[in-house]
């Protein structure tokens, strides 16, 4: 007998967020993330927490902004076109140094695109997305188990550094089901919340704003933000490494990493050894391990469900020391293990 549950990715993510102490969820429907909103509409009420189906994606992200200002663990979720609509709010949250969680269940784009799984929003997620010099902390789960466990990490990092976090996943992981174990989630919160706006009776008033018009104020604020981002870069690079000794190293996250894993299993049967570097954070990008691997491996093959986005960050990290190849399919198409093995033969 097993303690595991068969769960859909979207639902595991919702349950993980609830176990992580999410106090407020705001969302607007869109496929392929709908089961998440649906799940939260039932479970958040059962837990006596806040659930609001907002009138738009824009309203949802601004509700997260408001809840966060008041000190709540708040989240919203959407799929690609809806996440585009949230970018203004994310920029404001980054400027105001507000924690919060945004989930992007990526679908094919650009525009309204289609509802198949995709990884085409990588640039948007890791390079800012909205206006201004900022970054989100971006986590990339690779299984239903990780979809359950990552909201806690996202909330905790987001609060530790006071900056919004994103879980970047895709329609395939979110729609699939596999057994997962409802492991106990650590819900410890950073006690130092001397910045929240909860009424100033008996203490000096506080203010939270991103409009800084005094001379030099905005530059100083940007310097502070960059210091913070640099600290995150040195402290929080996360990844999983499989077959470290392999000559050819695949680099992929989320669903592409799953397909790469199958390719590795098939290559093993034929006696060929392939490795896989799977980023668990794509911002901060795991560049330290890539720099180390660049001195050991013969070549990298980056696999993505897009026309080539993360490959740019791999190239920046490797800095010409080792050849970096790319294989991807865009528009909601999924790469196959056979295609990956064919690409390997070409190297």
């Amino acid at each position, binding site marked *: *007998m*097993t303690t*595991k549950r*068969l769960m859909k990715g979207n639902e595991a993510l919702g349950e993980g967020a609830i176990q992580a102490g999410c106090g407020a969820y705001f969302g607007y429907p869109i*496929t*392929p993330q709908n089961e998440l909103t649906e799940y939260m509409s039932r479970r958040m009420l059962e837990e006596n927490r806040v659930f609001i189906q907002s009138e738009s994606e824009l309203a949802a992200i601004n509700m997260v902004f408001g809840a966060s200002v008041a000190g709540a663990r708040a989240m919203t979720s959407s799929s690609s076109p809806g996440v585009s609509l949230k970018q203004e709010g994310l920029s404001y949250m980054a400027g105001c140094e507000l924690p919060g969680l945004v989930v992007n269940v990526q679908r094919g784009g650009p525009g309204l695109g289609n*509802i198949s799984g995709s990884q085409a929003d990588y640039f948007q997620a890791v390079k800012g997305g909205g206006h201004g010099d900022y970054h989100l902390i971006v986590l990339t789960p690779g299984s239903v188990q990780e979809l359950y466990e990552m909201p806690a990490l996202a909330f905790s990092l987001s609060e530790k550094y006071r900056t919004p976090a994103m879980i970047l996943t895709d*329609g*395939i992981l979110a*729609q*699939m*089901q*596999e*057994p997962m174990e409802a492991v106990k989630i650590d819900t410890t919160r950073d006690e130092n919340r001397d910045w929240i706006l909860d009424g100033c009776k008996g203490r000096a008033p506080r203010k939270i704003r991103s409009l800084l018009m005094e001379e030099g104020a905005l530059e100083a604020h940007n310097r502070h933000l960059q210091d913070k981002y640099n600290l995150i870069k040195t402290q929080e690079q996360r990844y999983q490494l499989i077959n470290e000794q392999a000559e050819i190293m695949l680099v992929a996250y989320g*669903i592409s990493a*799953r*397909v*790469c*894993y*199958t*390719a*590795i*299993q098939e290559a093993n049967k034929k006696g060929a050894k392939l490795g896989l570097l799977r980023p668990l954070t794509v911002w901060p990008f795991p560049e330290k391990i890539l720099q180390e691997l660049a001195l050991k491996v013969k070549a990298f093959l980056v696999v993505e469900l897009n026309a080539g986005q993360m490959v740019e960050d791999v190239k920046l990290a490797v800095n010409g020391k080792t050849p970096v190849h790319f294989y991807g399919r865009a528009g909601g198409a*999924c790469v*196959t*293990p*056979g295609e990956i093995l064919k690409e390997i033969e070409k190297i």
Partner: protein
Amino acid sequence: MREELIIAGFGGQGIMFTGTLLSQAAMIEGKFVTYFPSYGAEVRGGTANCCVTIDDTTIGSPVIINPDSLLILNKPSLDRFKPRLKKGGLLVLNSTLIEDEVKETDAKVVRLPATDIAERSGQIRVANIVALGKYLAIRKIVNQESVLQALEALLTGKKKELLGLNRKALITGYEYK
């Protein structure tokens, strides 16, 4: 041993339920399993399909390109998925709704009048479970007992009254010659 199965038919034939049921049974046995549904603009009467992979080791991609087996409940699904079946793979067909010309050299074909059998046993809706029973009688990837347990886990609340019907359908499928 890895088993990659695609289940396909009309929306409304219980395709997704069949896949979930088999996945639940595999999980009960402590096996690795992934289930991936089609989630396009499928409607009742349109086609629906799902991928179920069962293994003794970690599974990477949940998307099946060339299945070991097909469980096919209507003609449009046969046309769509037959070309992807591995050579010599298992093809279980609902012969009530499908007239086929599949050659035995291509696949191990099992024709089962699942819809007729289900109708005779009292409920046309359980054709999917009859077909699953027949498939499992040939490909013994999970035990019948685990599927019966899985039915109990999935059919709860109001659906509990359907338990007897589904149990009977499963066993009828298993025993159909």
